[in-house]
């Protein structure tokens, strides 16, 4: 029922372990800050470490063949991990005068008493660190203030280290340093008047290639024997039709480097002294690996080119461009995009020739291992960075459809049964067993591709940071389909932002497939135009995609649907125009009908203003069409910037179902909940206290919680917690909000609950009126009618710090609720809402006890059994999503971070279904036995009666 998947994220750097024995492995560092060791044969994770989000990995390498060296936190932490099991061996902190780019070099040719030296340039200082114990052997400061090292080079077989880089924009610097003691041997500098671009390529141990600041002249800088010479070669001399400025693709292949202009990648060979020669020009997207020494004096490198539905691989020797060691074409899934990175590794075949493995990182963050013209394994590591999740139903099972799909023809069917027979007779070979298992899996209840009666089987549609959509089956978590956001002419690099349910067919539109709306943006800046993509959730096909002319600042799903169940959405652009989607006349007529009742609000957290807006009239201006509307400001709540800063806002989920508006309390009394879709919880803290916990004294830190009506801007409730500090995590459901913060006075975390009740309905207590239905409790209400509300609140201490809070949601909202708390240990803890009841008192009366009120305690209980994730960890936990199943008692929980975890929860036990371990056989046997007993006793009594009569 539960499943847990482990991912690592997009690979930044990969280092192959050169161990001759044992299982082959590759060490990778990723953009999710993971260092992992992967099995080269299957791609499984041997071990994995997730570093903190502020501990970004700068580089990894392998030292002495058995230590993984990692440099992180802007070059200030150097760690060594044991290669086989991933245990940390040592950790060193490298301080320096200023923040610079950091470079890691594990010197391999300089053995000092069986030790390797790690040379690290970080924070403006050069360190040499022992590989065995992490001791800093020597440090070297550079006298020039603004020196920015680009390469740390150690020519093979020498004791010299070259550090090359730039000072200011136009000065090239070279330091020659003795690797044994850090003594500065030589320092040279040269000035190039028009300046440099930062990236350099290393073409030999004493030559680098750079570009000038305009990107049009190639500069070959050689520093042989400590003499710097700069050769200029305009790109136009090499390539006639070069267009626009070029950028350097950083590489370190002897004699060859690559530059990229707008559409063309150019490979250039360095011949002799500063002479350049173009060897290849290609329009295809290309990735180049670093050089790999394969034998004495020979270095190989790999090229991967993307061409339509195929990728071309080539492995070449560095000094011989025209000859290929390997040339292959592999069919590649279109949804993986272009190759971004390639890493090369070799092995010796049995005939002593060289074989090559290529590890490719694709645009969609997937990691593939290619060997002998085939994809050996692939990892969908995009799933480590999910940004939005929604759920979709599976297709309804129809007679004939599923059978035809599973068993295509008679032959297949027969083969399947033969296999099963073999399996039962213990005759099956391992392949047969695997086939049987996969068949069983396919036909098993859990992972069927159709809807089930209880609504446990669904599709989780997830949007990842790279803009790829995945559909995960809730049964076992396998990827049903995936879809990468398309690039179009208008939009070269779309990024996905949010995911909305566009069409959820039920009732009268059942023959339509459900679809989701992906709202994206053309590029990272907030004023880039928006992109919409509509994707069918059954097939994963893009139904339609729109490149918008306007930006998308806010997307508001409206509570109205059209005749084919498409939900109306309002997109707000940066000029505060509202655009209606779908652009149909039917949607427009629905929208016009509700026009005066639709409002929107914006939270400007940077300047502490919440603004409410109403729709005014049709747009005027250049973007005008009939689906565009002007808006006007209605109200604003301005928080004083010197005392309050918005740190959290939360609203109710739009699709949350509430069963009842009444809350029955002790002695059959009624309280009416104030249930509104238009309530916003806002938490503000003192600007001083928005830093880390402990950075301020309790006197100068406070937290203010607001409940704001977003239609009228009315503040319904405001409470101040003195001596409290963020970060605030909150969840809003029905008529209550629970938030988590730090209490500086008590030195503990606290959770508070606010419940909000409607006072104006409180006197609706006449039974006869209620019996006869003469009340107006269910008639539509307007928020302008000034609701009278009362609130109840209470605070409790809580042991854990929290990453995220969610609440269970069920189909009808009858089942009691549980809070799902993502703890700092990357686990999910379920806590009954009853513990966070503001009406808990020290000595509850008998009636209150009957109602289920728990006696008041100062802290919330921590029950180890209520970990939803059991012993598993959802590394890097970011979000928890709950989806109601069709069965009222059950809710589906999906937690995502670097790992994914899915489970089913029943907050009040499964009161509406029998448990899985219920013995139907026993029930049947009991019934049969009872029937038999009845029959037998009936016969016996008949006989006895007859005998009595004869007497």
């Amino acid at each position, binding site marked *: 029922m539960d499943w847990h998947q482990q991912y690592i994220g997009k690979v930044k750097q990969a280092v192959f372990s050169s161990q001759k024995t044992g299982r082959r492995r590759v060490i990778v560092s990723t953009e999710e800050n993971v260092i992992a060791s992967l099995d080269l044969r299957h791609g499984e994770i041997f071990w994995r470490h997730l570093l903190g989000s502020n501990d970004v990995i700068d580089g990894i390498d392998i030292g002495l063949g058995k230590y993984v060296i990692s440099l992180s936190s802007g070059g200030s932490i150097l760690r060594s991990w044991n290669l086989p099991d991933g245990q940390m061996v040592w950790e060193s902190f490298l301080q320096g005068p200023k923040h610079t780019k950091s470079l890691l070099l594990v010197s391999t040719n300089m053995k000092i008493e069986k030790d390797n030296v790690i040379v690290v340039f970080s924070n403006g200082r050069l360190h040499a660190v022992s590989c065995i114990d992490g001791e800093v052997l020597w440090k070297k400061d550079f006298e020039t203030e603004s020196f920015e090292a680009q390469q740390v080079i150690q020519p093979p077989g020498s004791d010299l280290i070259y550090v090359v880089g730039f000072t200011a924009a136009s000065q090239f610097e070279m330091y020659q340093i003795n690797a044994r003691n850090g003594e500065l041997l030589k320092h040279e500098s040269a000035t190039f008047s028009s300046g440099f671009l930062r990236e350099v390529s290393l073409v030999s141990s004493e030559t680098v290639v750079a570009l000038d600041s305009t990107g049009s002249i190639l500069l070959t800088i050689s520093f042989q024997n400590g003499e710097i010479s700069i050769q200029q070669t305009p790109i136009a001399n090499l390539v006639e039709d070069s267009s626009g400025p070029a950028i350097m693709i950083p590489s370190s292949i002897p004699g060859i480097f690559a530059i990229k202009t707008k559409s063309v990648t150019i490979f250039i060979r360095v011949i002799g002294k500063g002479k350049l020669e173009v060897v290849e020009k290609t329009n295809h997207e290309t990735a180049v690996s670093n050089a790999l020494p394969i034998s004495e004096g020979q270095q190989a490198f790999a090229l991967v080119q993307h061409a339509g539905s195929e990728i071309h691989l080539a492995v070449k020797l560095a000094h011989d461009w025209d000859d290929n060691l390997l040339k292959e074409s592999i069919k590649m899934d279109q949804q993986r995009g272009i190759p971004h990175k390639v890493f090369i590794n070799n092995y010796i075949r049995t005939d002593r020739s060289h074989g090559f493995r290529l590890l490719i990182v694709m645009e969609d963050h997937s990691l593939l291992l290619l060997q002998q013209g085939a994809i050996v394994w692939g990892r969908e590591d995009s799933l480590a960075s999910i940004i939005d999740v929604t759920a979709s139903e599976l297709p309804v099972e129809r007679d004939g459809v599923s059978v035809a799909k599973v068993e295509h023809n008679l032959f297949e069917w027969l083969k399947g049964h033969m296999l099963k027979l073999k399996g039962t007779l213990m005759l099956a070979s391992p392949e047969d067993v695997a086939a049987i298992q996969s068949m069983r899996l396919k036909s098993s209840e859990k992972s069927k591709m159709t809807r089930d009666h209880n609504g446990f089987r669904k599709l989780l549609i997830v949007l990842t940071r790279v803009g790829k959509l995945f559909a995960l089956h809730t049964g076992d978590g396998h990827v049903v389909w995936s879809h990468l956001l398309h690039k179009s002419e208008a939009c070269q690099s779309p990024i996905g*932002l*949010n995911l909305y349910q566009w069409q959820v067919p039920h009732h009268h539109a059942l023959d339509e497939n459900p679809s989701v709306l992906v*709202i994206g*943006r053309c590029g990272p800046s*907030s004023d880039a135009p928006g992109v919409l993509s509509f994707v069918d959730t059954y097939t994963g096909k893009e139904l339609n995609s729109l490149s918008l002319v306007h930006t*998308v*600042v*806010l*997307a*508001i*799903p*409206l*509570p109205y649907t059209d005749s084919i169940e498409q939900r109306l959405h*309002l997109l*707000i652009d940066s000029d505060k125009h509202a655009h209606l989607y779908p652009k149909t006349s039917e949607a427009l007529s629905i929208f016009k009908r*509700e026009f005066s*009742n*639709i*409002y*929107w*609000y*914006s*939270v*400007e*957290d940077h300047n502490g203003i919440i603004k*409410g807006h109403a729709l005014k009239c049709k747009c005027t201006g250049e973007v005008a069409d009939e689906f565009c509307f002007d808006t006007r400001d209605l109200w604003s709540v301005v928080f004083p910037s010197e005392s309050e800063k918005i740190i959290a*806002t939360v*609203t109710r989920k*739009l699709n949350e179902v*509430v*069963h*009842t*508006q*009444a809350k*029955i309390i002790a002695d*059959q*009394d*009624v309280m*009416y*909940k104030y*249930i*509104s*879709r*238009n309530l916003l919880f806002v938490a503000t803290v003192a600007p001083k206290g928005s830093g880390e916990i402990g950075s301020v004294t309790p006197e100068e830190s406070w937290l203010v919680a607001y409940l704001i009506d*977003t*239609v009228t801007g009315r503040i319904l409730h405001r409470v101040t917690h003195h001596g409290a500090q963020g970060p605030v995590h909150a969840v809003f459901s029905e008529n209550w909000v629970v938030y988590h913060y730090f209490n500086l006075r008590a030195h503990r975390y606290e959770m508070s609950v606010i419940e909000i009740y409607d006072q104006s309905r409180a006197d*609706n*207590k*006449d*039974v006869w009126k*209620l*019996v006869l239905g003469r009340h107006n*409790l*269910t*008639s*539509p*209400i*307007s*928020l*302008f009618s000034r609701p009278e509300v009362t609130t109840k609140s209470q605070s409790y201490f809580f042991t854990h710090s929290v990453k995220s809070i969610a609440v269970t949601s069920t189909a009808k909202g009858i089942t009691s609720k549980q809070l799902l708390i993502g703890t700092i240990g990357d686990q999910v803890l379920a806590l009954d809402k009853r513990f966070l009841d503001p009406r808990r008192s020290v000595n509850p009366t008998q009636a209150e006890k009957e109602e289920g009120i728990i006696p008041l305690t100062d802290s919330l209980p921590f029950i180890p059994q209520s970990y939803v994730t059991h012993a598993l960890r959802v590394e890097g936990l970011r979000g928890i999503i709950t989806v109601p199943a069709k069965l009222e008692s059950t809710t589906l929980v999906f937690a995502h971070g670097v790992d994914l975890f899915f489970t089913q929860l029943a907050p009040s036990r499964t009161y509406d279904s029998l448990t899985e371990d219920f013995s139907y056989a026993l029930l049947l046997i009991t019934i049969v036995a009872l029937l038999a007993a009845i029959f037998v006793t009936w016969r016996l009594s008949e006989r006895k009666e007859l005998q009595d009569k004869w007497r």
Partner: protein
Amino acid sequence: MGSGRRWAVSFSDNSTSPSCRDIRDPPGFTRASVDQDDSTASRQKKDAESNWKAQKAWEVAQAPFKNLLMMGFMMWMAGNTVHLFSIGITFSALWQPVSALQGVGKVFEPYKDSKVELLGPKLLFIALNLGGLALGVWKLNTLGLLPTHASDWVSSLPPAQEVEYSGGGIPL
């Protein structure tokens, strides 16, 4: 052998016609006393019977009272919490009067007589049974099973619809 007739039974009753009687009356038996005031005796007998019937009818009508007392005692024993025993008692307390009331005619059937006034006993019977029913309802109420509170009528009232809608949030 002439006729084979050995014996014969005559079924004609000769008791009231002493003229043609060849057997004497047993000693102490006077035939005249029986025949004397036949009509007064039968009237007396009928009166006694109707008296007895009326008495019996009153008895039957009072029977539920005992039942009522017993029920009351059992209800007191059952307590005020909802569990199997108290529910059973309450429902039997409700069911008995109802079934008794349904069979009012049948209960008084044997005592039906033109001379017997059955209205009084019947009314008493009905009143006592209604009393039993009231006891049952009262018990039901003390158990909290009667929808007499506002809370019983609003517990599944859906939330009111709001006319306005507002969406938004922090810019994407």
